[in-house]
């Protein structure tokens, strides 16, 4: 029997730092909610709005798989591995922090607000060699389809990480219905609605709502509104 938990948009943690307006799906920084610590290995889902030219100066990380998906605008990235890059909406960035990496992320544009999702997963192996990657995604491939954008396999299209996790993005026409099958037994799915309105396993979800489902082999999905966009994170439930 599948189990689920709803995460409504207005129950997220919120921190407005002026240049940064952040919503935290799980406890992060000064937002602490013991009921919202993680969903399986998914530990962080931050929905950040960053003012033009502003951002996070150089700071270190270790032992975390960090995935960044810009939804609007562009990110200027620099790191201690020598990477300098720009990541635009429609692209994805991954960083395995491993033994330690320092990076900065700024809004690359002076006068356009940047909206990004920053996602952290616990790694399946500690102290790996740090690595960085970014890819442009074929956004046409996600129309009425859950397009896989991340996996544990380096041979797959798009990006890979040190965790048995699969991410998919889909954009759907009103009334479109489909199923999603879990990629690995024991994994759960955290579905985050980027825009529009959908039902997942009969639960109605609006923009920025989420549902976590586990003890299941798949989910039933229906788009209620036009241009409904959803991010699925298929992740191990055991830490």
């Amino acid at each position, binding site marked *: 029997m599948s189990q689920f938990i709803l995460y409504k948009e207005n129950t997220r943690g919120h921190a407005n730092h002026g240049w940064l307006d952040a919503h935290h799906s799980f406890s*992060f920084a000064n937002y602490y909610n*013991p009921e919202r*610590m993680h969903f399986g290995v998914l530990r962080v889902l931050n929905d950040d709005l960053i003012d033009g030219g502003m951002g996070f100066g150089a700071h*270190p990380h*270790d032992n975390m798989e960090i995935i960044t998906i810009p939804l609007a605008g562009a990110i200027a990235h620099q790191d201690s591995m020598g990477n300098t890059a720009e990541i635009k909406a429609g692209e994805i960035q991954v960083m395995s922090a491993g033994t330690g990496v*320092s990076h900065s992320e700024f809004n690359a544009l002076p006068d356009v607000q940047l909206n990004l999702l920053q996602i*952290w997963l616990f790694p399946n192996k500690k*102290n790996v060699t740090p690595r960085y990657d970014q890819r442009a995604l074929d956004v046409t491939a996600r129309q009425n389809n859950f397009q896989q954008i991340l996996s544990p396999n380096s041979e797959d299209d798009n990006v890979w990480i040190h965790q048995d996790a699969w991410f998919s993005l889909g954009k759907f026409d009103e009334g479109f219905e489909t199923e999603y099958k879990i990629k690995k037994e024991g994994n759960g799915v955290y579905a985050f609605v980027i825009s529009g309105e959908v039902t997942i396993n009969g639960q109605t979800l609006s923009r920025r709502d989420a549902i976590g489902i586990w003890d299941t082999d798949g989910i039933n999905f229906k788009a209620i509104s036009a241009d409904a966009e959803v991010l699925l994170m298929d992740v191990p439930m055991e830490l």
Partner: protein
Amino acid sequence: MQTTILYIGRDPEITIVMNRLLNARPEWKGICVCTDEEAILVFKKEAVDLVLLGNGINQECEQALRSELEAIKPDVKIIQHYGGGSGLLYGEIMSAL
């Protein structure tokens, strides 16, 4: 009353950041070291409430360190710190205490 937190991690840059973050809160006293020898000395000398294991500690060292610390003060919690920064730190400490 201050909570004394011992952080052990191999990366000096991250250790400096952790020291700054832990000591930025008046309710915490952070002591951050890079070697197991320093950690054991601090653990014997100070009234440590919580130990955070940071980056770069291999499995063999972690097991040896946990055994040694538990033999000295078995009631002190030892947890893994992930992320090497401020993002998860507060939640990890609040959950542990």
